């Protein structure tokens, strides 16, 4: 059975027709854009069939090739503020199962789930015959597409495979071309981020004939060191090795690289399968807006299981219905042109921070952030009397805190002192104020404010016509050598 939740539900909540999430990615058809990335969740047929039952549209099989031997103790993670696995690191190699078993299971999965996409991830030694052989084997098993693993940053790269290929444009082009000599199924080249400019490799893949790219593979990393034993993680008998970093922490890096490939003139139009920290429908929407035709998920599924696909589908469908998009193509790539070089940004655009007094809870995080991390234009002087202007006029954070430390406080006795606590409205003395004449509109206060929509950035008219740095530096008023 291949349940397809988008087909089962006929109408969206808003009355719009339920969007169709089906995609055709470089010729690979999938009931939705959500694929499991080549990784432990796609290690065997039994897993992948359960994933398809849960609703995943496709799966990229854990890389097959000559079986390897893996170490015990393979993952380590970075926790953040009490949350587990903000970032995950692994030193597991490609599949350690016999090739024949993997191929037999690919065939079995395709037989039982003909509508779901099964992509074989491949990695063999850099010999034309070896690649021809594995391509033929994967296609004979029924794979809908082939993903060339030129990105694995650990272990395999020491043997001249994985990112050892993906870091050299000539190798990438050559091996892609070998594969294309043989392949009938679409070929996806998986790009490594462990390179200075990902566009160089994407261009090489295209020159080699790739039908698509996927990005990004994991990032070289050491997640941390056990400060009791002084052992790096993951600990393999007292030692560790550089691993591949993934999970929510890498998403911004992945988005940037995806956008670079999508916007590059040489690779424009080359389908991209987005990978890197995707855990929610919002993440997926962002990758698609930057040009991805499908998205691949690993860490979130390793953390919570295949069941997360339910809300990936549901959340994305609801958002699309709300926006009036009926298919993925309706919004794919819309944001690519909105990312530009800095020199094309409008220098005349001005925003300032606005604090909603009714929402402010009085934490004063915006105040200290502005003083120590920005431009000293938020003050706690509503009671003492607002004074706009330069820093010297205002009480410094240290002097504000000193007043509290020097104050004498006693425990209130209910019938004598009334109650002084945080239940009432925020006292005026604790609500910070923005000096709009000094505010540069950096956004920092609105980022640190814990209350949603309490600090908003409001556009103010400057009376100036729009002008970019490019325009200014090409005109007469150009000021070369200024900061930029």
């Amino acid at each position, binding site marked *: 059975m291949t349940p397809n939740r988008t087909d089962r539900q006929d109408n969206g909540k808003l009355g719009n027709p339920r969007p169709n999430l089906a995609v055709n990615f470089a010729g690979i058809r999938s009931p939705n854009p959500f694929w499991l990335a080549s990784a432990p969740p796609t290690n065997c047929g039994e897993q992948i069939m359960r994933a398809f039952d849960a609703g995943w549209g496709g799966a990229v099989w854990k890389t097959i090739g000559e079986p390897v031997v893996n170490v015990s103790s393979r993952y380590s993670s970075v926790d953040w*503020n*009490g*949350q587990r696995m903000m970032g995950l690191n692994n030193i597991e190699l490609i599949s350690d199962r016999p090739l024949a078993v993997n191929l037999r299971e690919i065939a079995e999965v395709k037989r039982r789930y003909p509508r779901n996409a099964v992509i074989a991830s491949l990695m063999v030694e850099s010999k034309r015959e070896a690649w021809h052989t594995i391509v033929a084997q994967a296609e004979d098993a029924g794979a809908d597409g082939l993903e060339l693993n030129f990105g694995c940053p650990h272990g395999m790269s020491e043997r001249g495979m994985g990112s050892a290929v993906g870091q050299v444009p000539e190798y990438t082009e050559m091996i892609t071309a070998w594969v294309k000599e043989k392949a009938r199924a679409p070929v996806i080249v998986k790009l490594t981020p462990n390179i200075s400019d990902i566009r160089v490799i994407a261009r090489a893949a295209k020159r080699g004939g790739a039908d698509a790219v996927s990005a990004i593979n994991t990032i070289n990393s050491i997640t941390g060191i056990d400060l009791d034993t002084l052992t790096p993680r993951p600990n393999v008998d007292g030692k560790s090795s550089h691993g591949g970093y993934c999970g929510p922490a890498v998403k911004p890096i992945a988005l940037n690289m995806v956008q670079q490939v999508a916007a590059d003139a040489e690779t424009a139009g080359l389908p991209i399968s987005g990978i890197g920290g995707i855990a929610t429908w919002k993440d997926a929407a962002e990758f698609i807006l930057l040009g991805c035709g499908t998205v691949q998920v690993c860490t979130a599924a390793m953390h919570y299981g295949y069941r997360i696909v339910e809300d990936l589908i549901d959340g994305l469908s609801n958002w699309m219905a709300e926006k009036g998009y009926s298919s993925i193509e309706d919004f794919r790539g819309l944001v690519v042109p909105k990312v530009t070089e800095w020199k094309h940004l409008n220098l005349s655009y001005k925003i300032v921070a606005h604090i909603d007094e009714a929402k402010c*809870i*009085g*934490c*004063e*995080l915006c*105040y*200290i952030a502005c003083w120590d991390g920005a431009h000293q234009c938020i003050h*706690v002087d509503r009671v003492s009397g607002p004074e706009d202007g330069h820093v010297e006029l205002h009480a410094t*954070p240290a002097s*504000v*805190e000193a007043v*509290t*430390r020097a*104050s*004498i*406080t*006693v*425990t*209130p*006795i*209910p*019938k*004598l002192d009334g*109650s*002084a*606590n*945080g*239940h009432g*409205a*925020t006292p005026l003395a*604790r609500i910070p104020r923005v000096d709009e004449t000094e505010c540069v509109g950096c956004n920092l206060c609105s980022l640190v404010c*814990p*209350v949603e929509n309490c600090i908003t950035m409001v556009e103010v008219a400057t009376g100036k016509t729009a002008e970019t740095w490019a325009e200014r530096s090409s005109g007469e008023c150009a000021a070369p050598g200024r900061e930029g």
Partner: protein
Amino acid sequence: MENFSGNSEIAARFGDLHPPLTAQAALLEANRCLNCFDAPCMGACPTHIDVPRFIGKIARENLRGSALTILDANVLGASCSRACPVEVLCEGACVLHRYNKKPIEIARLQRFAMDAFHRAGGRLPLKSAEARVEKIACIGAGPASLACAAELRQWGFNVTVFERRALPGGLNTYGVAEYKLPARASLEEIELIKALGVEFRYGVEIRTQADLDELEQDFDRIFLGVGLGAARRLGIPGDEHRDVIDALEFITRYKTADPPQVAKSVAVIGAGNTAIDAANAARRLGAENVAILYRRSERHMSAFAFEYEHAKQEGVQFLWRVIPVQIHADASGIRSLECAQARVNDSGVLEAVEGTDFHFDCQQIFYAIGQSPLLDLLSSVRGIELSHGRVLVERVTGLTSNPKYFAGGDCVNGGREVVDAVADGKRAGVALAQAFELFTTEDTESTEKGVRT
């Protein structure tokens, strides 16, 4: 620790009202803290513990640093974490109240840090390596004196604490409900102050002018942390009966001696926090029927709202606007407490309404209607000004009108919380150290060093 073993029955009946946090729970809770600037919780704490700082250190697994942050502001950080009415202090001030969220569990986090510190055998740090010749006496070994003594000792002074009872800690050891602060925990904490080198003399009662003269001879300054005196009596016929018991005395007895026999039905007179502690204890020790009788209404009670709620959960009943009139007893013991309905008359005075008398059947009566000041002692101090039985002091320093004497805690504030006493004692300790020009010397030295290097 002094010869104090505690009692297993009491331990079983008075388990922690707020159980300790596990390490994982503490980490999660600590990470909820917003780390406010100039945090309201810090401002609301009488000792101004830097709450976001110590909580942040828990979040970053720097537990020693966390405990030292607490202790730097409040040397009784462990007992305060258990005994403080945080609902009206730090946790009450938490900004998360205004964001429809649960305030940070500051007290339990503080206890977590302090428990870890004690478990690791932590010691209080010295603030000066220099030994001083000046000697200071602290009268009373309650929270105010302990805070004053610790502060002075950390600066190198010689401090002796005089205590009339057998154990140190004052109300911390003898008077806080065991489910909040076990006597054992109070004593463990004081071990740290002893380890600093503060000398404790027990069973020494300072009462007369002659006692004070002797102290004045031997010590350069004297800190009065004497607390309050005897409980006010009911002053009604029959109140001499042996089963009419001072509520605080009852609490002391169950905490530090054998568990007392509790009657089937107990009346508690008064509606302050002590009355509630005693009523709850009576329930936990087996009384079937416990009622708090108060002459005014609910909104006039001096107990905190959360204490009132807790008492109701423990099964304590409340009778409002009731005046005790007479205690009836026979050979077998108390039979009943005769009461009348109260009303405020035209001149604003409470009076019994005629013809409303009723009998509340009980065999024991606890009274908690306030404590009298220790007038016999305080009036023996030459040149010390009192007001309504309280010692008048300069708020910032605790200096009395006799320059040889400083004072703090209940004898100054009329009876507030442990944390208020600690704040008083610490301020006095800092002021005393400053008076001996300690800080001036320190500053000069560091400046000189700075110039040289």
